[in-house]
């Protein structure tokens, strides 16, 4: 039992605030860049949010995007996007493409005739083609889905800030919210930058990021609260450094195990959920960063009331008082 993999040495004394202004600058720049990207590039909305039809094709022959496009041209469907899908899990005889047709003007419901026409046209090009999945969403539903998605993100942020506010102090809640907004925004910025398909499962991924990131933030806050009670005289900045250092090993370890599992899924989990897994993986990286840098910077600026002794509220939390001298 002698050997131990130590990702982080036993005792660290990194000064996480040495580069305070640099990290604040980087975070602010990333958020700004994300907003700009979202405005300029926009998100590559999937049919969940834009309405339309996606048809997944699979064939033993190589995908010829040009021929597909030509075959669909006479149907006059407006905006048709055809992309070939590559994945390490595909066999040699498995050639997959994704055909996306935007919602047709003036039709609320989905027309099976259109889908049948598209399928017939593609079968002309390649007789071995099959259609493992066909999905259509009408513009009415997609509008509502966007609305629900925005609600979901906002309600989560609100619920979490209320919880943090109840368990800690309002400054912590503000810090947590800023860091969560940072994570969500930057992740969306990356989706805008690379034009990755943004659909309903991406929203689930964003919320998972929120959940994970708050997890990280809370662990550090929890330690900070403990240290604030233990060392009543030391400056807040030192205590924050101490808390982050003390929990650093855990932060790295948990991020490590989660990332290891997610990378396995990213590589081997198939193309259908790749966008989803990518969002979570990226979010965990950014979430770990933000709980170390963003959340605490905000709390440091806002300051924390230090006179904990007069408060009775915290005695109610079951384990925080265990170390009181």
């Amino acid at each position, binding site marked *: 039992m002698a*050997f*131990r*993999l130590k*990702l982080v040495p*036993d005792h660290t004394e990194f000064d996480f605030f040495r580069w305070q202004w640099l990290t604040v600058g980087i975070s602010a720049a990333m958020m700004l860049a994300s907003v700009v990207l979202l405005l300029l590039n926009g998100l590559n909305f999937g049919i969940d949010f834009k309405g339309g039809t996606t048809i997944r094709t699979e064939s033993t022959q190589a995908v010829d995007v040009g021929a597909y496009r030509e075959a669909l041209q006479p149907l006059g469907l407006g905006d048709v996007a055809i992309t070939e899908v590559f994945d390490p*899990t595909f066999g040699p005889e498995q050639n997959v493409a994704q055909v996306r047709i935007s919602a047709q003007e003036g039709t609320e*419901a*989905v027309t*099976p005739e259109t889908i049948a026409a598209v399928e017939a046209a593609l079968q002309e090009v390649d007789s071995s083609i099959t*259609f*493992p*999945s*066909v*999905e*259509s*969403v*009408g513009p009415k*539903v997609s509008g509502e889905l966007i609305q629900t998605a925005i*609600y*979901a993100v906002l*309600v989560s942020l609100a*619920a*979490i800030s209320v*919880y*943090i506010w109840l*368990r800690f102090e309002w400054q912590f809640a503000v810090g947590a919210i800023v860091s969560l907004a940072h994570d969500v925004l930057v992740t969306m910025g990356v989706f805008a930058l690379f034009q990755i398909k943004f659909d*309903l*499962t991406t*929203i*689930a991924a964003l*919320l*998972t990021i929120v*959940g994970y990131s*708050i*997890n990280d933030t*809370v662990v550090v*806050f929890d330690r900070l609260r*403990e240290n604030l009670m233990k060392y009543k005289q030391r400056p807040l900045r030192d205590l924050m450094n101490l808390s982050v250092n003390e*929990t650093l*090993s*855990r932060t790295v*370890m*948990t991020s490590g*195990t*989660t*990332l*290891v*599992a*997610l990378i*396995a*899924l990213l590589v*081997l*989990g*198939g193309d*259908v*959920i790749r966008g*989803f897994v990518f969002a979570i993986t990226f979010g965990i990286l950014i979430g770990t960063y933000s709980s170390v840098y963003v959340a605490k910077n905000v709390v440091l600026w806002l300051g924390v009331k230090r006179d904990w002794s007069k408060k009775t509220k915290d005695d109610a939390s*079951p*384990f*925080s008082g265990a170390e009181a001298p």
Partner: protein
Amino acid sequence: MLQIDRWKRILIIGICLLGLAYAMPNLFYKRVEAHNDAVATIEKTGVTTPELIAARDGWPGWLPSGLVNLGLDLRGGAHLLGEVQVAEVYKARMDALWPELRRALADERATLGAVRRAIAPEGVLKIEIGNADQLPRAVEIVRGFSDPVTTLSGAGQSSLDIRAEGNAVTIQLSEAEKAVTDDRTIQQSLEIVRRRVDEVGTREPTIMRQGSDRILIQVPGIGSAAELKALIGTTAKLTFNSVLGTGGDPDARVGPGQVVLPAADQEGVYYTIDDSPVVTGEELTDALPSTDQNGMPSVDFRFNPSGARKFGAYTSANVGQPFAIVLDDQVISAPVIRQAITTGSGQISGSMDFAEANRLAVLLRAGALPAELTFLEERTIGPELGQDSIDAGRVASAVGFVAVIALMVLSYGLFGVFASIALAINMGMIFGVLSMIGATLTLPGIAGIVLTIGMAVDANVLVFERIREELRTARGPARAIELGYEKAMSAIVDANITTLIIAAILFVLGSGPVKGFAVTLTIGIVTSVFTALWVTRLMTVTWFERARPRQIEV
């Protein structure tokens, strides 16, 4: 000191064993599924064949047989979201009201003057009378047709909204009555969709109401959504109407209460018919596919007594006149009445093949949808794609699992082994709970499980790191372990509650696959806290009692 009560130990081990026992059937998925299907079939039909008995006995009946439901994205099948056009019912109600009102008003023609139906928007009945000064009397008569609405919110309201203006009475359903009608329309639609899907006999279809006027239909194993739509998208509204004229102009001018409908089998032929039906398909008791006198496919039907009476009266009064058999706004045929039909049975023939005749019979038997169903969302997932996703998910989970274990054992030694065993138990328990509550596993759900693998060890990491710290203050290993668990608790609780909040929101607001993700995430959080805190603790304490190490290394 470091100890756990005996009853607690038994409880912890018991819960683990229970969870694992419920998870076990999933290892023999095909066999258990065959067993469950066989049991269901035997129970439903009472028929026992050697194959059914063999399938049933393939899995012992006393073992748990709950399985994790696979979502459509994993099993393949069709998903439809339909919207019921509830407003159609308003129109039907008004159209049905008109003949009755006309009769009542005509009885007082002496005072009211001529009564006629004026053109009005759909769902609104506008009646003009000759003597405008007698309008209050007309309103009084109309009011006699209005009933009080019995709902919680609409108490005291009556079913009709009646307005008088100039020489006309405008009638439509009141808001309260509309709400009641909508609810009934959706309930009926659900029932009819369910009956139609059941006629096809696929396993475990999901048919449920969503929002105020929508129906979600998920049928696993069906080839395509188009197939499903052909079955449930057809309104199958059958009516028998009197024919007022024939022509070739689809836009022919017609009076109020009349409509022009195309012939189903003759291009360019249009019938002008009376919009108020003589008899409707609701009064059918049975429908069977058969052949007509020329050997062509047709459907035989039978009316219930009241339908038979109405049909008999109408046909005896209109011998020599044509009448139209109308199905979903198309005239299937318009035979001439040769003699009064009082037997209450009849035949629909027209251009259809045997498959269509069969489907029409199914639709007529199951009943008509009270209103048209339009589709807002449809998804078909092929079974191969689903299987590919399952395989990919399985490989990814296994690799992720092994990698996490390696990382844990390398970092925490023996304690890492404890955490890994707890993680394995955790995985089993997630499947156990999923099977127990009959939850549905979706592709994002698998991702949720993989994410849980990564995050489940978080609680253990918190504890182990804490024990390491406590060991440095040198209070002896037992005390360090105890304090490690105790002090890590607050962070673990906070961290998991916030994640639970997220999962709850996802569950409430999400749909389909996202909901599946929320379910596995929630279960994963609960089981991982249990295994990470109690199961590893039990293992640690048991080991500690046996080995009594003077010092420990975490």
